[in-house]
């Protein structure tokens, strides 16, 4: 029988990391995600699985520890919240450029600047458009429940290693802090060093029995650098073809569709229930992968619905990608709350009526 636990999203991340065979976590405290490292320190996985847990001197240092661990072929991760994720962007760009697998968790809080410790979704652009320098993409998973926090650690590592690309779990203060029931993944042993060497022949494990490996993002010849860029682009296209994930909540008969991710998608589901009581056929499309974005699904919906309302805890960021997908075929409106405020289902329904149904 499944073992059901009650815990915070942040705690579920830590339990899942240990259970899926993670080799190392490197972090720095920041609200609202400090429970991730606190839970790991309490669990003492170095005594059971051998997982390394280290509190670094800064987010910058933590992401560079992840860069090195990923370069050594290890399953490594870090977590932070918005201002800390900004600090990590240099390292994330290097990791993406060197094509290394890792998992990064962002439990978003309101910004800009020091902002607030309350939940927000205003790091969408940073996450999906490339928060660091250069042309690169992250695989971005957006959990909307504690269960998905637990599930996406394993999924994140799976995708990261499949494509040798960093995977970002883009959560927010609601999902990180709330307690829900969760079924944790079964225990999977960490890979042995022999398995790491076999699985990652490119890793800096020591050159025993092979030519040396060099992990670098530096290339002085523009002709070769362009080829590296084109190779990355091709990889991102493959990810777009294979890895789109979304939840379709009553879109089958919908006249109107809310497009929303993470915690605001939960509010939209409640709004859809309210709307249907009033005879308005409202569905919710919840992108689970923000990159790759469910463009095709939105295009399919655009052919048959009357309009879209994108709901985000931001000034309107994902709405730009929804508009690109809809390409003017149907109206795409936006409703959002900012600064740590979470929208209510009534507000969403009201916005739908005012902006779309009229």
């Amino acid at each position, binding site marked *: 029988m499944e073992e059901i636990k009650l815990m915070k999203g942040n705690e579920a991340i830590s339990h899942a990391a240990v259970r899926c065979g993670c080799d190392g976590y490197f972090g720095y405290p920041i609200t609202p995600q400090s429970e991730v490292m606190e839970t790991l320190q309490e669990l003492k996985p170095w005594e059971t699985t051998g997982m390394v847990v280290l509190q670094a*001197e800064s987010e*910058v240092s933590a992401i560079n520890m992840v860069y090195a661990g990923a370069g050594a072929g290890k399953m490594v991760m870090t977590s932070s919240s918005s201002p800390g994720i900004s600090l990590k962007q240099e390292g994330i760009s290097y990791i993406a450029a060197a094509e290394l697998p890792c998992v990064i968790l962002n439990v978003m809080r309101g910004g800009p600047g020091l902002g607030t410790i309350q939940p927000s979704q205003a790091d969408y652009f940073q996450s999906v458009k490339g928060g660091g320098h250069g042309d690169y993409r992250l695989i971005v998973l957006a959990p909307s429940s504690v269960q998905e926090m637990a599930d996406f650690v394993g999924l994140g590592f799976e995708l990261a290693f499949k494509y040798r690309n960093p995977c970002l779990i883009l959560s927010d203060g609601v999902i990180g802090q709330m307690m829900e029931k969760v079924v944790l993944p079964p225990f999977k042993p960490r890979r042995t060093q022999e398995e790491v060497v076999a699985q990652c022949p490119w890793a800096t494990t020591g050159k025993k029995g092979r030519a040396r490996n060099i992990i670098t993002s530096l290339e002085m010849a523009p002709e070769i650098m362009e080829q590296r860029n084109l190779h990355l682009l091709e990889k991102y296209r493959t990810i777009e073809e294979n890895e789109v994930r979304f939840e379709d909540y009553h879109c089958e008969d919908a006249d109107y569709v809310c497009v929303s991710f993470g915690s605001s998608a939960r509010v939209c589901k409640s709004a859809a229930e309210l709307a249907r009581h009033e005879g308005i056929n409202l569905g919710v499309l919840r992108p689970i992968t923000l990159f790759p974005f469910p463009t095709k699904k939105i295009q399919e919906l655009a052919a048959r619905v009357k309009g879209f309302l994108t709901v985000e805890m931001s000034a309107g960021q994902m709405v730009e990608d929804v508009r690109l997908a809809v390409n003017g075929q149907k109206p795409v409106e936006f409703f959002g709350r900012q600064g740590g405020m979470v929208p209510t289902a009534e507000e969403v329904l009201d916005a739908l009526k005012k902006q779309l149904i009229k």
Partner: protein
Amino acid sequence: MTTKDIIKPENLVYGKTKLLTDNVMHYCPGCSHGVIHKLIAEVIEEMGIQDRTVGVAPVGCAVFAYNYIDVDWQEAAHGRAPALATALKRLNPENVVFTYQGDGDLAAIGTAETIHACNRGENIVIFFVNNAIYGMTGGQMAPTTLEGMKTATCPYGRNTDIYGFPLKISELLAKLDGTCYVTRQSTHKTANIVRAKKAIRKAFENSMAGKGTSVVEFVSHCNTGWKMSPVQANAWMEEHMFAKYPLGDLKDTEKKHYEEPAK
């Protein structure tokens, strides 16, 4: 006796270590990076640790160090090498891990990473080449630039009222409880090369014995950035650099290991 008779293998008294690749070095003529690379490569080979050594290259002149020493390498972002080395060593404790950094990388942009890796007593080796200037970017002021010394960004000389003082980072690192061995060497004369090589070996041995962080500083010159001939630069280094950065061991001990407090 002809040259052909002399160059027989049995007459060979010295050879290039196999761990130094045949890639043509990009360093300027007169630069000490080549000598330091060679010494590190020789020590790694002599200790037989080439199959488990991982180097971390900096941003700066030595950014291409990975082209020259035949071990696994990871290229760090500017200043972050000690963070990388920390993770590499902790995740694979059987590996021998070293960083190779310049003064801007280690003592300016990477000060936090350097101090905290040393303070944690990471069992890594930090090789620090101090030539008092940013070489790769064209000779700008470094944290270790001497008082009054001219660079591209202090063309009238480093004014310590404006830019502060030359940073004696090795003295600072020697004060930290996590370092076991901090030494300052040079490679401008044969006797110094011999001493530097011994220091490199000792540093590697310390890291393998889990004694703490070892820091080997090489006081060097940048004849190109200093706008001098190599001979002039060596003389200037002896007169001015050694006065501020005197050669010799700053610390030689072992870090204290944690004991659980009595209950």
